[in-house]
């Protein structure tokens, strides 16, 4: 099958159109994502006592929350336990750590499972007590609760970028 020679005059107009589209969408005002919520307590990152980690960087925490990292260094699988929507702890980790809306976070995990990147999304827990109870009995588990609810309940509270909840500069809040 013969084809006519390809025209080249489409290129300038196409590139101009493309750049204009990028500039228009890129300049669109965005809501202030990443702002901290109302003044409140820090959110503690609590893991099962057998997890061989004491400190995570903020980027590592985000990768765990998004399922981009599924194993602890010991080879133990990470089990994510996250509060149901509306809970402040979930709001903090979804909006501030992942920089996503609730809808984006759900779509991310549906896509993650559909891509066969992982078999399971985060498990939902309905209270701080329930979250800590499940962390204590699930090797490799990780959850997020208000620091006041985490104290003295078992599990291990991780440092984030070297800081514990309540310390100046702690970011998960």
């Amino acid at each position, binding site marked *: 099958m013969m084809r*006519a020679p390809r025209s080249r005059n*489409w290129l300038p107009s196409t590139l101009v159109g493309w750049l204009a*589209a990028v500039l228009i*969408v890129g300049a669109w005002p965005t809501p202030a994502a990443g702002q901290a919520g109302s003044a409140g307590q820090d959110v503690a990152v609590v893991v099962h006592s057998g997890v061989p980690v004491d400190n995570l960087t903020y980027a590592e925490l985000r990768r765990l929350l998004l399922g981009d990292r599924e194993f602890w260094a010991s080879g133990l*699988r990470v089990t994510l336990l996250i509060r149901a929507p509306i809970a402040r702890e979930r709001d903090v980790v979804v909006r501030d750590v992942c920089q996503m*809306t609730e809808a984006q976070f759900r779509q991310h995990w*549906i896509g993650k*499972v559909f891509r066969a990147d992982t078999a*399971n999304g985060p498990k939902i827990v309905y209270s701080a007590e329930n979250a800590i109870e499940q962390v204590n009995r699930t090797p490799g588990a990780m959850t997020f609760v208000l620091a006041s609810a985490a104290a003295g309940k078992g599990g291990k509270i991780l440092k984030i970028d070297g800081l514990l909840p309540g310390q100046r500069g702690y970011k998960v809040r």
Partner: protein
Amino acid sequence: MAAEEGEYPRLRLAGFGDFNFSRERRIEGPRGFSVGQFVLHLTSQLSSRVTFFGEISFTARTDAGTGSPPAPGFNAEIERMILRFDRSDRLRLSFGRYHTPINYWNTAFHHGGWLQTTISRPEMIQFGGRLLPVHFVGALVEGTVPAGGLNLGYKAGVGNGRAGVISRGGDAGDVNSDASYLVNLASKPDAVYGLEFGASLYADTITPATGDKVRERIVTAHVTYQKETPELIAEVALVRHEQAGSVLWSRAYYLQAAHRFPWDERRWKGYYRFEHINIPPADLTFAAVRNLDGSTLGIRYEASPFAAVKLEYRTWLRGAGSTRDHGGYFQVAFTF
């Protein structure tokens, strides 16, 4: 541990579907209303380190039924069937039928129309297309390493390569004694959250249903930024065919930009894509692949967290001297 083993297998079922309407100046696809794909996705954890993934699609076709001429019907297809063993984040080994991981779109969105922003896939990786092998049957080793915040992911695979009909994978066995190989490297750097870039190499020997063997080499690259304000996807593919001493290069790329608007609870997303395909006339292996310079402009509305409505306008040329075509498209896409 024993109690944990009792929890397996742990089967989950999810699905995707879409309904469409199209109106084109000169018909290239379905006319009027059409049922899109009905896709079932199965995930079954067989142990804490072994997982099965399956994807089955049912696609409306004019020739899927029985009789002569064949009646319209639905064509069932096993899109993916993968058994994977996870050693750690750094090492996973799997076997099965995959969407070939040398193209970002092909592995990011699969058959989930709801997952992709647009109604249409880029033509370089359309379902049933020939330019890039959509499916890959074989084995894959993959993993990610932190690499100082670069978060490097790798995939290396060996498989059957294309079937005699080159739009198909070698599901029932290899058509020749030459395996296909692929390598994919990608990075999601911590420093720029949302950014991903990567490149792939693919090597195969094609034995077409008619004609001599063709040595095929494919080089692809992609860059994406997935924060939705904006969302950017760019991919390029170069396909080298060597046959009887002559070497021919085909090339294709697309650039897509989208932006989720801040109003109405961020339900609206506008998008634009330009795509280009150029096939050398002498490449008979790609005789059925058409040149393309096309633009797609559309808007997506999230009717619910799990259903979207999309409206799209497309305009395209099929090479120099061709008449410009255009069409309007509507889609309702959902997951369940």
